[in-house]
């Protein structure tokens, strides 16, 4: 093994600049003539905008422009598009309302941007914003799913009767009903998947610059996918062709999904820059982020599981309401449907499945992908159901899973909900996690906790997810409006060093390191001689960005394909230099060698010959050594595993402490184990956050009550234990490196394990149900209710 290649825990290239304060994030950048924008956002969840008086604001010191939705419309800007169209059960298309960049006529959620103020300094912009008078007529609003579908509910959009955006289904209803007809037992559950805020610590920012000399726009933005933003700006919102647009996503301080989407502010700073003649920068404040970054989850689900007398799963019937918020964000309709309901088989054999999903508009911030995106919701449902079934049928929780897991010899496994899993070994990860948590000695630990007045619980979850999105033709057939391949260029320089241009984007994942390891492994070039470039549409030919744990599986595969072309060309050059037949040239460890001899040319010698072609097969081979590749995946990848958690509950206060986490994942072939473990850790923290702490709480009038870091609780260091992460590798069968993806496993697998552990701890007190987040108050009330007290 190359010590800097595949499988090595190489420390990261990108660390140095971050550790000395030299990272370059969007807000760090000051362009010559820089001006600042701030937004006035609707304080009401739903309101008619009667009038806007900006007379005083326009005269305020330093103010360059005060802009409204009418200005946006007058300049002919397009709205913010949705990237996925869902087809209803009845064959009609989803309701797709307009999404103007600044509210026009009505504001539809608290935080909806209404007025943009541009001034020379941020202080001047803020001062002027206070002088703008907006006359609102508050309208009835609806924030919560049950209320939004109740008869007589206020309508978010006139065209969406019952606030229904789409009414979609998947699976075979008749076959599923038949299984329920002959089931020995049926277990039912009602669950709420709590609404969460992504809260990357770097707030969103956008800095737009229109160059009058070149008639060209440049946007610096906190994006996970700059090429996608260029595509959407070019084709839909700004309506300027791509060659007149440069999008740069420099260092980005975390995304977790929230920086995938095309946001109005990206369009508005570019537009405003052309109007005022200076670069315009907007940086979100945290309270603003809570009201404008897309939220995640927010599902209400009822499910029934049919089992035979032995506890084997036979049928699954699911009805879900999914909150879309007030507008459709870029991928919103795909999350509860194609990224969630298609996973309803989980890691289990379930012969028949039928699921209905309704997307519902509410007067809330748009809901879209947050780390896991649909798969945490499904995993939570299946794993809560598995535990409930075990309890009701009197079967051990581990046994009911073991009995129903897809076996190694059943792959490739076709589920009843569209997906075909290529490979996995779910028993192996189950065994590995159970051994790590040492379940055999749980009773002793429980007794020890009890001595300290604590109730100890053990929880388990066996999960699968679909990553590596995605085969373009398949997602196109399902309503995606873009292809989901990935692109890469590998440029070998004359002295043999290498620059890789990748269409994926790293905002914490460490691609500058892992992709350099891929190159070092395949081309034999030293790690330090490789640079990975991402995040700039002028430097990178194309790309679809980073989300859904796709970068290594799809972006890495594109790099490998480009390197294959480089090696092929290098063989032709080497054959000429070595006076041998191309068919006889082998390449390994950075050497082109005539098979069976010691005659060889190094990779660097071949690169030099390609750029200084004095002795060169110039009639048949072009000079230079650079190639590009687009890789379109053949299937999704299917990471899977088992997460085990132990908690201690204080029955007096309801406080839950996670005391042990041991997980075993199969994320496919691993490039850098240190980085893979780090990705798992971060996902676990967010998953534990969703289970115990995090929730976007709206009141009935549509005001977000948890709109700051003081009221929205996230895990801090003392809330979490050390994590024990194990890996069992089965290589993905359809991409060149065998990678499946690791970015989301923690957020997907662990929430049900935490709640199952809490319910296990509380079982002796008679508590059988709790919804996330299991806050101290909720746990305490559940205990009181079960004990017959006043809850």
């Amino acid at each position, binding site marked *: 093994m190359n010590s800097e290649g595949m499988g090595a825990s190489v420390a990261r290239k990108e660390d140095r600049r971050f550790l*000395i304060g030299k990272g370059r994030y969007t807000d760090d950048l000051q362009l010559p003539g820089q001006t600042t924008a701030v937004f006035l956002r609707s304080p009401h969840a739903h309101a008619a905008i009667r009038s806007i008086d900006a007379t005083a604001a326009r005269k305020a010191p330093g103010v360059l422009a005060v802009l409204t939705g009418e200005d946006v419309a007058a300049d002919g800007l397009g709205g913010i598009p949705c990237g996925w169209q869902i087809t209803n059960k009845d064959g009609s298309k989803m309701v797709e309302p307009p999404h103007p960049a600044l509210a026009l006529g009505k504001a539809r959620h608290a935080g909806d941007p209404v007025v943009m103020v541009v001034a020379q300094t941020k202080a001047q912009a803020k001062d002027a914003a206070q002088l703008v008078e907006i006359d609102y007529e508050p309208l009835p609003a609806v924030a919560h799913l049950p209320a939004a579908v109740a008869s007589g509910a206020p309508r978010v959009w006139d065209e969406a009767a019952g606030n229904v955006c789409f009414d979609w289904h998947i699976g075979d209803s008749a076959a599923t009903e038949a299984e329920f007809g002959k089931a020995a037992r049926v277990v039912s559950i009602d669950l709420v998947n709590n609404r969460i805020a992504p809260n*990357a610590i770097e707030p969103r920012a956008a800095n737009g610059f229109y160059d009058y000399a070149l008639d060209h726009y440049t946007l610096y933005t906190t994006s996970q996918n700059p090429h996608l933003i260029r595509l959407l700006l070019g084709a839909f919102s700004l309506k300027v062709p791509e060659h007149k647009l440069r999008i740069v996503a420099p260092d980005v301080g975390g995304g*977790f999904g929230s920086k995938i989407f095309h946001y109005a502010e990206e369009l508005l700073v570019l537009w405003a820059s052309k109007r005022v003649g200076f670069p315009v920068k907007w940086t979100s404040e*945290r309270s603003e982020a809570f009201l404008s970054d897309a939220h995640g989850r927010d599902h209400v689900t009822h499910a029934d599981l049919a089992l035979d007398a032995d506890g084997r799963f036979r049928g699954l019937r699911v009805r879900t309401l999914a909150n879309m918020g007030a507008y459709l964000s870029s991928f919103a309709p795909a999350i509860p449907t194609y990224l969630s309901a298609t996973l309803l088989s989980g890691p289990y054999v379930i012969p028949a499945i039928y699921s209905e999903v309704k997307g519902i508009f509410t007067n809330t911030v748009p809901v879209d992908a947050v780390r896991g995106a649909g798969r945490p919701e499904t995993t939570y449902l299946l794993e809560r159901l598995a535990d409930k079934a075990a309890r009701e049928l009197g079967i051990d929780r581990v046994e009911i899973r073991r009995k129903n897991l897809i076996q190694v010899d059943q792959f490739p496994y076709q589920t009843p909900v569209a997906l075909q899993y290529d490979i996995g070994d779910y028993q192996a990860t189950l065994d590995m996690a159970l051994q790590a948590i040492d379940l055999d000695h749980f009773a002793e630990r429980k007794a020890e906790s009890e001595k300290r007045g604590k109730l100890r619980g053990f929880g388990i979850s066996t999960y699968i997810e679909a990553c590596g999105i995605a085969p373009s033709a398949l997602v196109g057939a399902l309503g995606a409006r873009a292809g989901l391949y990935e692109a890469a260029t590998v440029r070998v320089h004359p002295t043999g060093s290498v620059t890789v241009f990748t269409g994926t984007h790293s905002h914490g994942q460490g691609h500058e390191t892992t992709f350099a390891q891929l190159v070092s492994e395949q081309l034999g070039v030293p790690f330090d001689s490789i640079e990975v470039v991402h995040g700039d549409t002028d430097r990178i030919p194309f790309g679809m960005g980073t989300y859904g744990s796709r970068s290594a599986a799809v972006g890495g595969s594109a790099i490998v394909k480009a390197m294959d072309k480089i090696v092929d060309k290098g063989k032709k050059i080497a054959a000429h230099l070595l006076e041998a037949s191309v068919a006889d040239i082998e390449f390994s460890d950075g050497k082109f060698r005539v098979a069976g001899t010691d005659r060889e040319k190094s990779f660097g010698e071949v690169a030099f010959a390609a750029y200084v072609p004095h002795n060169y097969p110039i009639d048949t081979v072009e000079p230079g050594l650079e190639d590009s590749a687009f890789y379109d995946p053949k299937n999704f990848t299917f990471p899977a595993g088992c997460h085990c958690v132990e908690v201690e509950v204080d029955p007096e206060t309801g406080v839950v402490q996670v005391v042990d986490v041991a997980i075993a994942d199969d994320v496919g072939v691993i490039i850098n184990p240190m980085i893979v473990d780090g990705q798992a850790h971060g996902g676990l*923290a967010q998953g534990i956050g969703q289970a115990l702490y995090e929730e976007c709480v709206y009141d009935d009038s549509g005001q977000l009550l948890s709109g700051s870091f003081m009221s929205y609780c996230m895990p801090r*260091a003392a809330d979490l234990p050390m994590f024990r992460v194990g890996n069992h590798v089965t290589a993905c069968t359809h991409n060149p490196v065998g990678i499946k993806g690791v970015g989301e496993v923690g957020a997907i697998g662990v929430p049900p394990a935490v709640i199952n552990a809490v319910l296990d701890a509380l079982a002796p007190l008679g508590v059988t149900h709790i919804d996330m987040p299991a806050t101290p108050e909720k746990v305490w009330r559940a205990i009181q209710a079960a004990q017959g007290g006043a809850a």
Partner: protein
Amino acid sequence: MASITLKVNDRSHAVDVEPRTLLVDLLREQLRLTGTHVGCDTSQCGACTVWVDGRAIKSCTMLAVEADGAAVTTIEGLAPEGHPHPMQAAFHDCHGLQCGYCTPGMVMSATDLLRQNPNPTEDEVRHGLEGNLCRCTGYHNIVRAVLQAAEVMRAAQGPGAAEVGGAR
């Protein structure tokens, strides 16, 4: 406008600021020291942590005029270029950072934690960092890094050891 003088990373500055200017805005916007970050508006996240007169503070919670006459150290001044502080080295070794955004504040808090307690337990490190949010790492590798840095710094301060991380 108020005129103040302060030392930042051992360099003296005389600046005019609006009375409402926060220390973090002075550092980032006027002095262009953008290593200090802003992650919230309620003093919860700690991304803006710097040292003022040797103690870690959240620079979004302090007015620039309050720093008149003070000595401020930011992440840029923690160690000389090319000679990382043991805390910076440990974060690199232990993969204690991912997106890097919370990192400067985390490092400035963690170094202050070790000043107060050079030999912390894991639990003391976790509680000592409660003023800093990280959304990427789950804190696992940050805690490892702080424990490693503590060990390195204790060893360096042992009898006859050379001084490391000379910023304080």
